[in-house]
């Protein structure tokens, strides 16, 4: 196509001629900026015309020449100025490249002290005439350091330009747009694709951990497919959701929706909007911060690139749990059963009493408890007879689990259209048996210019996930909840190799001397993990399409239509052929369930963007309207009456019941923003968003969220001395309001729920109010202040610091109300909270040390959370295990309270002579009488800290040497306290019901076997109130959740160009990588990131907090 068509006779500028050619053909133009600024318009005639002819006509009489080179590029140059020839005039030819010898087309070359200049062509070549041998050429290119080169008789020059990071031309994605990093005046952190995928994980939350100051990613459940809790600059809510808003390519995902659906290989970069001023443009959903995910796109004028990314690896569990073996357990169990028996009536009972005597020792007419019997089978263990069954159930429950990831992508583009497409397959087996995840995903991005003014794009992300999981907190299914109860005397398999079903359930409920031993009747965890079906299939596709049109000069209109379809189907089946807690197989009935949910969500967004630059003033104005609506449908069918295990889903049942739930939410918003700067030196931005949400009461349905920020790049001031130390400095301050609307869909309404009765054995449907209305319900409003100071030193070292302070008012609080009202809690906007702290980010790149190229980064963030107000007349919320989680005005959220344990009572006399809890026996804990009132009660509890850390930090480095590169990253948490529910009630309680930790066993008190122990004496059968109240105190130690973790370590090798040519690929990297290699912590529980999802009981850890995996990988990345 070498001809163009002119619609009508007209007079146009040269620029417009070029546009006509560009829109109708594949031609590109390269010419110096402003070349045609002063040239008069030309007349063109209607009809078809050869391009070369059109150009000749248009450019005749203009002081230029043109030539067509390869790639349909037309280079236009000034005609050499014809001057009177001077002496020694000489022509210089040369080439401009970057440090990697890539030619830089369009670099400008100027003869110093003259107006004479030229530009490099497509291959980086130039030629210029200079007056004499002393001439100096000034060579410049955007983003590179300008260089002056003396001619000195040479006529061939090769000029290498260095990249100049000080110009910080990096672009950062912000809400509803992009901005150059230098101009960003809020707290926005960015992670690029290069930094992503260092951690092998199905979802992006894991990629963020430890990378960004102020962002805490708690992988509180390491089960494949489980999502992490992400908190940005502290937790700002007590009851409402804590999930940040995640926006993928402009489409805000429903809060809390699974991140597994986004393949991390398809992510180009992630921006985290941490302060309210940056986030306020997302209004009522932004109080927990906003994470903007940009997926990979193709580039125009780029040949198709095909990339294969793949890794294989294996994972191991990395918990702090260590349990005793059978020989130790026998010792423990004997002590517990004996002391339980004796302590009830010490004058009349003796540990040496055989069972035949024990059963006769009634107390007040009561038979003895079976837990007071001595177990017959323990003796061989106590005699340390070798070869007895000694199952390490940890080895049964955990495995070395493989994981694989394959990702194939293609991207490219011509002048008008670009695309990116990928296919991904991810397969992870869990480190706990019976858990795994598979994901098939694809991504497709296309954008195209219809003409010079109109552009459109389509983005689609379908994925299909298959998840096998277990309720690990349960004492019937899964493995982790059963581990503390699985006794080492029983084997997972029978001698014939088949599963050993119900041996422990039956054996632990057998009778001795006619009395049940009342042991620990749990099913073989291998059976529950492999035979219980908990199988979830999820199909999700989300994406958007947009049309962008320049409707006037500098004024762009954009229509974005987004959608999200998310459907899952879950089958649950607990066969009758395996036992459950206390119930041996075959059970009378199996349990079956089928759960279906589908959720669809759409977004309609209209925005106008106007940008204007004149005389050093630069404006960018945004205005828009968005509407989003979500539909949710949920059906659960429960089946009972299974005659057999033949059909292991609800089809096999004979009776059914169903739950159905459907809901809708809508959100309508208006938004506006103006960004202004003068000379890129003084920067101001103001924004406002007004949101209306269906979730809130009629009286508070609409809210406005303004923000204001200002910045000053003081190093650009003329008075600032030019120097080589401080290359860049920016001071910024911002203030803004954001909201939190994560309260469920109908929180403002008084709901009627069902509550049935049976009259004469016939079901009588009942319905009644079960929640109270609140027409004033509105969003939580967070006002936050951010002051930032950014530096660049020695052109290498970037330092970014910030102080933040956020006040959250009108907390959405599930306020515990006095229960005489008939309600336990009421959802209300009540209370106030403050989060403040400092952040420092440090990074340096390209430090040279011989042949080594070194970079490093470090970040640290401090947090101070203070509750300022709670409900009316309320100054404390105490909840959770033993009311030990205390949220108190003036203190941090959910401080963990407990008694201060001073030691063990070894004699009755000691007990009598000191204040103690009722029921205290020797071997129980001695507690400090904090308020010295002579009695021990809950007022003697003290705070032992909270889950919310004092500070978090991360640091890492990368080193490149020839073709090798090596990197590592550490992350750490300091000032975190955890309470482990399983430790409190089982593994360190000393009750003979469980398998204790080795720590407990080593340090337990026993008057003869371990007289120096400092943990409560094993006791089964007479477990005192005192121990019950103290068992949670004894496992909580201030800051027991602190850790330092080697998050990632990675060694990569890039093949040299010579090898690449031989195997015909453009790049090829092989790497070895390991994640979570070690975690330094004194925490003895499953997972130091583990917490309950309820903010008010933050830091409560159980077997449901699946441990984090240690992962070792080998991977390759090949680009064709």
């Amino acid at each position, binding site marked *: 196509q070498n001809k163009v068509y002119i619609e009508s006779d007209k007079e146009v500028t040269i620029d417009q001629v070029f546009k006509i050619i560009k829109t109708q053909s594949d031609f590109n133009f390269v010419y110096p900026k402003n070349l045609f600024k002063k040239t008069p318009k030309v007349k063109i005639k209607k009809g078809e015309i050869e391009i070369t002819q059109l150009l000749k006509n248009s450019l005749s009489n203009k002081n230029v020449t043109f030539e067509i080179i390869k790639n349909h590029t037309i280079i236009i140059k000034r005609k050499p100025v014809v001057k009177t020839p001077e002496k020694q005039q000489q022509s210089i030819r040369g080439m401009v490249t970057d440090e990697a010898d890539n030619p830089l087309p369009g670099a400008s070359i100027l003869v110093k002290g003259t107006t004479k200049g030229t530009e490099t062509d497509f291959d980086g070549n130039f030629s210029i005439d200079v007056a004499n041998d002393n001439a100096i050429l000034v060579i410049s290119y955007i983003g590179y350091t300008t260089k002056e080169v003396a001619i000195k008789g040479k006529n061939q020059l090769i000029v290498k330009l260095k990249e100049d990071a000080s110009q910080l031309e990096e672009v950062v994605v912000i809400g509803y747009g992009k901005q150059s990093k230098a101009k960003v005046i809020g707290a926005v952190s960015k992670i690029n694709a290069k930094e992503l995928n260092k951690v092998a994980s199905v979802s992006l939350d894991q990629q963020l951990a430890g990378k960004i100051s102020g962002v805490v990613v708690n992988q509180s459940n390491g089960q494949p497919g489980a999502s992490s809790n992400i908190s940005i600059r502290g937790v700002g809510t007590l009851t409402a959701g804590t999930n940040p808003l995640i926006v993928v390519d402009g489409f805000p995902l429903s809060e809390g929706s699974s991140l597994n659906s986004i393949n991390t290989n398809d992510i180009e970069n992630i921006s985290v909007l941490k302060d309210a001023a940056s986030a306020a443009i997302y209004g009522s959903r932004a109080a927990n911060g906003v994470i903007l995910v940009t997926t990979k796109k193709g580039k125009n004028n780029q040949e198709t690139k095909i990339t294969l990314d793949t890794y294989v690896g294996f994972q191991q569990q990395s918990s702090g749990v260590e349990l005793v073996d059978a020989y130790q357990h026998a010792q423990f169990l004997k002590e517990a059963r004996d002391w339980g028996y004796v302590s009830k009536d010490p004058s009349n009972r003796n540990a040496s009493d055989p069972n035949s005597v024990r059963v006769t020792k009634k107390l007040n007419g009561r038979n003895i408890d079976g837990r007071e019997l001595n177990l017959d089978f323990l003796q061989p263990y106590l005699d340390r007879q070798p070869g007895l069954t000694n199952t390490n159930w940890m080895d049964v429950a955990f495995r070395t689990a493989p994981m694989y990831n394959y990702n194939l992508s293609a991207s490219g583009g011509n002048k008008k259209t670009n695309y990116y497409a990928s296919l991904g397959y991810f397969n992870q087996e869990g480190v706990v048996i019976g858990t795994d995840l598979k994901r098939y995903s694809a991504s497709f991005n296309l954008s195209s210019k219809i003409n010079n003014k109109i552009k459109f794009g389509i983005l689609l992300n379908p994925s299909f996930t298959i998840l096998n999981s277990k309720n690990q907190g349960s004492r019937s299914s899964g493995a982790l909840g059963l581990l503390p109860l699985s006794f080492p005397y029983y084997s997972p398999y029978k001698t014939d190799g088949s599963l050993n079903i119900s041996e422990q359930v039956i054996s632990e409920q057998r009778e001795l001397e006619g009395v049940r031993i009342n042991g620990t009747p749990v099913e073989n965890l291998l059976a529950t993990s492999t035979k219980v079906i908990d199988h979830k299939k999820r199909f999700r596709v989300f994406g958007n399409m947009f049309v962008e049109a320049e409707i006037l000069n500098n004024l762009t209109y954009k229509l974005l239509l987004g959608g999200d379809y998310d459907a899952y189907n879950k089958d649950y089946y607990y066969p009758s052929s395996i036992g459950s807690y206390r119930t041996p197989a075959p059970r009378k009935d199996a349990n079956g369930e089928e759960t279906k949910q589908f959720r669809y969500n759409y977004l309609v967004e209209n925005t106008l963007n106007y940008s204007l630059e004149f005389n050093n003033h630069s404006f960018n104005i945004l205005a828009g309207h968005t509407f989003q609506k979500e539909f949710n449908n949920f059906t659960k069918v429960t089946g009972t009456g299974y005659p057999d295990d033949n059909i292991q889903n609800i089809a096999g049942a004979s009776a059914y*019941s169903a739950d159905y739930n459907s809901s809708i939410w809508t959100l309508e918003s208006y938004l506006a923003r103006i960004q202004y700067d003068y000379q890129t030196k003084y920067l101001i931005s103001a924004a406002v968003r007004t949101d209306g949400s269906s979730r809130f009461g009629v009286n508070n349905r609409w809210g406005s969220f303004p923000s204001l920020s200002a910045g000053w790049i003081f190093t650009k001031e003329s008075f600032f001395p030019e120097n080589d130390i401080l290359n860049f400095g920016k001071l910024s301050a911002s203030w803004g309001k954001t909201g939190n609307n994560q309260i469920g869909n109908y929180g403002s*309404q008084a709901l009627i*729920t069902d509550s049935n009765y049976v009259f004469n054995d016939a079901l009588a449907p009942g319905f009644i109010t079960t929640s109270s209305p609140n027409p004033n319900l509105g969003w939580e409003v967070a006002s936050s202040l951010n002051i930032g100071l950014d530096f660049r030193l020695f052109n290498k070292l970037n330092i970014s610091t910030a102080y933040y302070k956020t006040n959250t008012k009108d907390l959405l609080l599930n306020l515990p109300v006095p229960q005489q009202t008939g309600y336990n809690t009421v959802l209300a906007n009540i209370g106030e909270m403050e989060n403040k702290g400092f952040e420092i980010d440090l990074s340096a790149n390209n430090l040279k040390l011989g042949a080594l190229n070194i970079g490093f980064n470090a970040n640290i963030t401090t947090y101070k959370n203070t509750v300022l107000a709670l409900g009316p007349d309320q100054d404390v919320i105490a909840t959770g295990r033993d009311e030990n989680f205390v949220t108190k005005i003036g203190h941090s959220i959910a401080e963990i309270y407990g008694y201060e344990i001073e030691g063990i009572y070894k004699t009755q006399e000691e007990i009598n002579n000191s204040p103690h809890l009722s029921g205290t026996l020797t071997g129980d804990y001695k507690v400090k009488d904090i308020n010295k009132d002579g009695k021990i009660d809950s007022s003697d509890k003290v705070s032992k800290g909270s889950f919310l850390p004092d500070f978090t930090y991360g640091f890492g480095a990368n080193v490149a040497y020839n073709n090798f590169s090596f990197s590592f990253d550490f992350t750490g948490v300091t000032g975190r306290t955890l309470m482990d529910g399983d430790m409190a009630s089982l593994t360190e309680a000393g009750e003979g019901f469980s398998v204790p930790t080795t720590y407990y066993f080593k340090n337990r008190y026993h008057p003869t076997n371990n007289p120096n122990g400092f943990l409560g004496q094993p006791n089964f059968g007479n477990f005192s109130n005192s121990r019950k109240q103290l068992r949670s105190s004894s496992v909580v130690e201030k800051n027991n959740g602190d850790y330092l973790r080697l998050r990632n370590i990675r060694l990569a090798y890039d093949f040299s160009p010579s090898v690449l040519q031989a195997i015909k690929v453009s790049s090829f990297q092989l790497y070895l990588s390991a994640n979570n290699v070690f975690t330094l912590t004194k925490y003895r529980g499953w997972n130091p990131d583990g917490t309950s999802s309820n903010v008010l009981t933050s830091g409560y850890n159980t077997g449901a907090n699946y441990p984090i995996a240690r992962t070792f990988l080998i991977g390759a990345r090949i680009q064709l």
Partner: protein
Amino acid sequence: QNELLQEPITNKVSGKFYTNEKELEEAVNAVYASLQFTGNFNTAIPAIGEIPGEDAYDATPANDGGVYGQLDDYNVIPQNGLIGTIWQDAYKGIQRANIVINRIENVTYENNDTKQARIGEMKFIRALYYFNLVRIFGNVPLIIDEVENPQDFFDQKRAATTEVYSQIKADLEDAISKLPTRNDSNKGRVVKSAAYTLLGKVALTLKEYADAKTQLLKVVNTQIFKLIDADKVFAIDNELNEEIIFAVQYASGINTNKEGSDAYRMFNPTSRVVNSLSGAKGHGVLKESFYNLYAATDARKDVYVGKLSSGEAYNNKIAVPTTVITDAGSDWVVLRYADVLLMLAEIENALNNQDQAIFYVNEIRKRAKLTPYTGTKDKNTVFNEIDLQRRLELVWEGHRWFDLLRQERAQTVLGITDINKLLMPIPASQIAASTALTQNPGY
């Protein structure tokens, strides 16, 4: 704008409910449903009525957080979850009754007598809950109106027991004026005799013997109720029989096993396995010595109670569940005619009418196939006989602890040294949630 007005799709909303008789009847059903809650007559009220008594004990006191074991050992702590549930569920039931009493005013019933009966039923149920609360906790907050804004109650104090009792009486008297007499179609609901019986029990608790006698005699004189054969009283196929005045109903094996109670599992000895239903928790075993109190000829022996080879005895009034152990179908009998007769015996004895007292006791003995009472007629001896027959007749019906409390014998019979233990602690969560609730002394 209209898009922002989203009403619940699968939930009924308070503002659009309670508009007609059908919906009010559903609300009434939900009030009855509250009787089945864990903290009410499912397990908690039975447990607190029986386990502290001398005949039942918790064989596995450390299990389930020790909540039952503490009842047995008189060392209940304010964090005891069962006590917390009693408080919560009683008030949930009260609020439900308050809602119906409030909303029914504006609804027209096809038959106004039905409407009046419903008000009476609600007031009876409300009185029953307050009667439980006041006996368990002493002074308790008193709310008799529908709560619209729970936040108004942070500073509500506990009302004196006298105030609570006068409300209970007022409710029962009003109920009596509105409730119908029992017939075949309403025997599952609250009827007039139930209100008389409860009012009599309340008066007896307050030692107002004359009034108690008046109320209870009204039940006797209607001649609707009678004693039936011992093996028929609790037969699962003979529920709501002529001896049952008021029972909370349960059913086993329907609605995916969700309409039964957990009483069978919780209270039976762990060794009791019938129809391969294992997993009983042993929290309410009966002493062998108590089982031995039944004479060999007593028709109630091995009917009301049974014994295992280990010597552990058990309550046999709750029938074995049909499918899963958590789903017992037996109704929980709150009031029955044998109780009425035994209360009358106690009253007459207190009023020094020993002959009349012995007459009532002999009714009970006769039905148990025992010979008439032959002991002396002095007040104490007669009392002891009445007391024994109450234990044997009403075992595991949740009366014992309350009987000993009202007779002021808990300390002597049970050996409780700390008088503070006669009241349960206000749940710790409630002390934490309210600024005005004070803890009972000794906790």
